[in-house]
């Protein structure tokens, strides 16, 4: 293949653009979710996931998930080296099927919450969180 200078520039630019795209999903995240669901399909709705639109620091990102009627909820960070974050199982004395925690995000990416409902079905919610690089290292 003969590359002209112009082609090379265009190629460079598109590669650059690619590196700027957030981690939307990864095979590892899909695998982790499939492990939790046993490969069952997930529907949208029934899970509310609250995350900041922009996280000031990826070390400590507040995340809340609420899935009324769920028996278990798992949270995944699709762009982390290992996508699993937490899996919460709710007992008979749980006051709600909700959990808030603080998590690490390696960069801008999707956070995914999957809830296992009492009837064995699975529901999913997903939010993109932009992780900024701070000012001075301190």
């Amino acid at each position: 293949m003969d590359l002209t200078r112009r082609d090379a520039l265009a190629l460079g630019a598109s590669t650059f653009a690619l590196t700027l795209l957030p981690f939307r999903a990864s095979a590892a995240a899909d695998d982790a979710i499939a492990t939790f669901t046993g490969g069952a399909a997930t529907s949208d709705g029934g899970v509310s996931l609250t995350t900041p639109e922009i996280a000031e620091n990826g070390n400590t990102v507040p995340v809340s998930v609420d899935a009324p009627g769920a028996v278990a909820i798992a949270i995944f960070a699709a762009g982390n080296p290992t996508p699993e974050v937490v899996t919460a199982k709710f007992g008979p004395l749980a006051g709600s099927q909700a959990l808030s925690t603080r998590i690490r995000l390696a960069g801008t990416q999707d956070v995914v919450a999957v809830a296992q409902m009492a009837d064995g079905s699975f529901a999913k919610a997903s939010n993109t969180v932009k992780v900024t690089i701070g000012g001075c290292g301190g």
Partner: protein
Amino acid sequence: MKTSLKGTLGMAAALAGLTLGTGLMAGEDDNLIVNEEIEMTVRAPAPEHVDAFDTIYSGWVFRSDETQALQADDFDNPAFVFVDTAIDSWNTVDGTEGKSCASCHEDPMESMAGVRAVYPKWNEQAGEVRTLEMQVNGCRTEQMGAEPWKYDGTDMVNMTALISVPSRGMPVDVSFDGPEREMWEKGKELYYTRTGQLELACANCHEDHYGDMIRADHLSQGQINGFPVYRLKNAKLNSAHARFKGCIRDTRAHTFAPGSDEFVALELYVATRGNGLSVEAPSVRN
């Protein structure tokens, strides 16, 4: 090596950010009330000796909503797990005299009220300006017969956080017109002295560009009323001197050491720039 490369890239980007500053502030109109009880003064008229601004702002004002919320409740504020640790060491006997902090000072919530607000402070007996850290180590070596703690070590920063708790909400009121004046002038000179390969003084960022973006972050006025601070970045408490060291390193200079005369002077001067803001320590920053 890794750190210096990161620092270089960071500052190059930071400089670009400086010129592109947008003047936005995250929580310009928000107010901070801790535990639905302590009303913090996060903006106040600038002290007369500060010429650069009319209003001084706590660093809290410049943070995102999520970070701000962490400071509104002592349970959500992760600094308090370290305050708990400091309560244990407050009550622990150490040294040859068989004393703990509690032996003389009993309940820190009562005996230490108001202390953070007036430090650094001239110590007549010692004939020097003392920071809270110096005072703690003074107690340890002179009263307890114990080894001094590392100036910016974990034991020390946890302890200064505990000592700050009962002063929260009180206005910072650090003196600078008595015998401490010479140190204060030295601190002021340092504040306006450009350092490092990037030739930046404290004032170049924190006076000229507060509120602007420095990369993806809002520059604050560099107030220290919230120190020690719990930083999300390193998930621990950080002293003012550790922050000074980080700032000066980012100008690519050799920095002064925590506890050095230079940093004591700088802390004294910077503290007086915040006279009128509330003591917030231990606060939460990114």
